[in-house]
């Protein structure tokens, strides 16, 4: 916020100074204003923050080419772009006439910098950045030499749920470190294991689906637990109140009272009701228990049942938990025995057997009362499961999902998974997308394609039906797509533009590969402030000796987040 505001302010100040400069005779004022602007820069962006690249040809990334313009950099952002942009008095300027400035290339499907193979081990909580090697200087230099400044990296390795990917800017960190996370946990990765034999792929898909279903169940059990806990707390409170009341009654009324209730149960209720006006249902049965002595069983049955009905649903799970806890017979005490019957109407028909038990208990006398009090079991809290928490985030669409699938059947399975759990998904690789493009289009799932260069000679692997026209088929089916270098190798991650060029050329598409790896890649990753050159955008800029699409052009300088990360002259 502050940044945007200041750059806006600084911009307007320099605007004023320009206007005043043209009207002449306001030199002092101009200097003062310029100093002010610089002071603002210095204050907010640190020393040396302001920088101007002068008089370059600018390829903006959103389809425009400005033949001659200057770009000012303020902190991590672009201050301004235009024919006569100035940075202020303290700003350094760099003469770049004859050179071309383009946005840094963005690789939406990369493994650059992730030098450890198999970063993910089927663990949803794995994070790819943990495998990032910030000191792989030659890898990063090679990326800079080819104009790459921002990458999406995901965990690679086995099949199944692999962990979360991240968007990483190749910016300068402490010392020689390169790479800072722009977006952590950018997406949860699932690999459908298209390279595996058929049975293994079936297993992979089933395992993934089960993981998601388990996550849903896990959530249900947590919700159950919460309501049980609420119920439990309510019960405890009620019992305490009841007890207090009882004791108060005992003190107040002599034993004679006790003889009254045994009459008819109906009366009992009426007498009870005024006592526990707060619906003191649960404690009642216990009270009843001693009373029934010698009473006909029938009347007893009726009252407890209706009373216990409300607490039933929670109890059902409660009793399970109690059973698990190994409380054994105690779990069967009247209070607990009836709830299952409430859970299932059929069971309630067979609810008779527990009654005799209930009938037995009273025989054991008042001691039982105390025991029963202990028997209101605290519901067991489900074990926290961080893996499932990650999956639940995906199910709630708070975390996008990336599904790597190459074979058409795996793609269709992926679409099923997306549908079942309503995931916010992107397909990765999608080698055989051309065979099922319509289904992908119908599901409105975007696709990020990988390596465009594959030979004709393929075995029965996941790339066996690789088709150069894949991108064209996606276009036709109106699928939103992007292209990255693919996660084939670390080295492949530098030729992001070349891979996009090959993708377009092979598919017969005449669209701009450069736009594909700048603005379109940024949009695909949801980064509106990257991939183009404009006011307030990320200052990820590459200065080329000529047009970036010409293989003979050399990268002369690279800025990431406003800092020089590569300088050919210094090498």
């Amino acid at each position, binding site marked *: 916020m502050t940044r945007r505001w200041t750059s806006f302010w600084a911009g307007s100040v320099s605007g004023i100074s320009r206007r005043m400069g043209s009207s002449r005779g306001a030199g002092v004022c101009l200097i003062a204003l310029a100093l002010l602007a610089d002071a603002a820069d210095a204050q907010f962006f640190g020393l040396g923050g302001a920088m101007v690249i002068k008089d370059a040809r600018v390829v903006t990334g959103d389809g425009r080419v400005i033949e001659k313009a200057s770009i000012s950099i303020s902190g991590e952002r672009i201050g301004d772009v235009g024919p006569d942009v100035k940075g202020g008095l303290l700003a350094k300027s760099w003469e770049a006439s004859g050179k071309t400035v383009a946005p840094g290339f963005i690789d939406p499907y990369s493994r650059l910098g992730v030098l450890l193979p198999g970063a993910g081990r089927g663990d949803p909580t794995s994070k790819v950045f943990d495998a990032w090697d910030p000191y792989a200087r030659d890898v990063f230099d090679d990326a800079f030499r080819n104009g790459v400044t921002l990458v999406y990296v995901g965990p690679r390795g086995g099949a199944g749920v692999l962990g979360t990917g991240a968007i990483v800017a190749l910016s300068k960190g402490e010392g020689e470190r390169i790479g800072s996370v722009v977006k952590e946990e950018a997406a949860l990765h699932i690999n459908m294991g298209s390279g595996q034999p058929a049975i293994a792929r079936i297993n992979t898909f089933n395992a993934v689906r089960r993981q998601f279903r388990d996550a849903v169940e896990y959530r249900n059990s947590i919700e159950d637990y919460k309501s049980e806990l609420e119920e439990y707390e309510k019960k405890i409170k009620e019992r305490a109140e009841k007890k207090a009341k009882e004791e108060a009654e005992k003190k107040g009324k002599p034993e004679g009272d006790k003889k009254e209730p045994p009459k008819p149960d109906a009366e009992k209720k009426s007498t009870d009701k005024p006592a526990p006006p707060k619906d003191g249902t649960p404690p009642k049965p216990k009270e009843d228990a001693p009373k029934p002595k010698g009473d006909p069983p029938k009347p007893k049955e009726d009252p407890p049942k209706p009373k216990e009905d409300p607490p039933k649903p929670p109890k059902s799970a409660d009793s399970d938990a109690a059973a698990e806890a190994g409380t054994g017979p105690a779990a069967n005490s009247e209070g607990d025995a009836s709830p299952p019957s409430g859970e299932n109407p059929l069971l309630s028909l067979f609810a008779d057997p527990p009654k005799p038990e209930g009938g037995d208990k009273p025989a054991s006398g008042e001691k039982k009362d105390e025991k029963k009090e202990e028997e209101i079991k605290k519901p067991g809290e489900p074990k926290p499961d961080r893996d499932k928490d990650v999956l639940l985030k995906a199910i709630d669409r708070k975390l996008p999902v990336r599904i790597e699938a190459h074979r058409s059947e795996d793609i269709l399975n992926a679409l099923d998974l997306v549908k079942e759990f309503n995931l916010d998904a992107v397909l990765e690789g999608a080698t055989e997308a051309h065979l099922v493009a319509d289904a992908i289009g119908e599901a409105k799932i975007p696709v990020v394609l990988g390596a465009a260069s594959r030979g004709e000679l393929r075995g029965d692997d996941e790339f066996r039906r690789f088709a150069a026209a894949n991108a064209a088929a996606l276009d036709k089916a109106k699928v939103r797509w992007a292209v990255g270098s693919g996660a084939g190798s670390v080295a492949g991650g530098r030729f992001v533009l*070349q891979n996009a060029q090959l993708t377009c050329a092979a598919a017969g598409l005449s669209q701009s590969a450069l736009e594909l790896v700048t603005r379109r890649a940024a949009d695909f990753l949801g980064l509106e402030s990257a991939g183009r050159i404009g006011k307030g955008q990320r200052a990820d800029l590459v200065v080329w000796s000529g047009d970036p699409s*010409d293989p003979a052009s050399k990268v002369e300088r690279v800025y990431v987040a406003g800092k020089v990360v590569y300088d050919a002259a210094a090498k």
Partner: protein
Amino acid sequence: MSWHRQASSAICAVLILASYGGAAERFAIRVGGVVMPDGTVTGPSLVTVVDGRISEVRAGAEAAASGGKVVDHPSAVLAPGMVDVLSGLGVIRRGSHVERVRAIDPDLSIREAIEQKHDDFRAALKSGVTAALVIPAGNNVIGGAAQAVRLTGGGGVEWLREPGPLMFCVGQGVLEATREPTGMIGAVHLLREALTAAKDSKGSSRVNAFLKSSLDGLLTCDEEQEVIAAARVFTEGGRLPLLAWTPLEASAAMELVKPFPDPLIIGPFTLDTPARVLRGAGALQQAGRELAFAGALPVLPGSSARISAALAVRYGMDAAAARRALTINAAKAAGVAERVGAIQPGKDADMVIYSADPLRLDARVLEVYVKGVKVHDASLE
């Protein structure tokens, strides 16, 4: 009405036939640029084809055609069809390029194993490859004769020259546990024996012919040490073959390849090739050597040689030299440079129209001509 429709479809059929088949006697192509034999790209030009051969290349947007049809592609670039050096087209998928019974087997000819109507040829043609030097796999020290072929419109091939060059290999591929050589010393020894015998004209006729310069030779190597040993043995024999070798470190390469003639065959490079290897091409070229890029189809895609060239240029090779390496030098490596590999009067009209400079990887193949006949038109796909 129905007569009308019939007639119009007949006309269509004729037009399609005309655009594809029938040796167009004389026509011209007007393009925005031409890749010249020296590797530079000219401005707008008019290239005239007569009877399947290039008859004239005239610069200038206003150059007038002297009769015949004119194909207009004002923003496109015309280049010679590519020659896929170290090719496996027509043989690899059937494994028919592998023979490992005898390490010295000069009388083999890969020609006998080429499946002339293989699908791979048609696919290659669409990528702008109009010729190939099909080689036996490097499993023998002397592996027989390679074969240069031209890819024709019908999806087949024709022989572009007599069998040749003779293939030599000193590399890991020649070692076998079941026959000699089992180690690199043995491989070099077998090669020396064969060459010494030929020096006295007592060797196999093809090895004799190689030393007498009536048959070309082509040597493939993997490691530096193999290049050094082979250079010594061939120098003793009196003639050095062309060398196909991709240096892993640019620094030492220049010294090692010195004895071998131009062009040096290098690559193929892929998007995964490390920078230090990519720099090798530029280093050799800067040191004055002429290069030719290997394509290695169908293991790699049809644009393989172009990818090699584009990446070599990114890592320091001169653009014009890279275009030469892609066209005329590849033709020289295959021994077919008198016929193809350049847009030059007298050469066969095996040409490709690209949407831009073929060094740019976003350049699309628009049309492909073989002997002046259009064999591929992307706009009809």
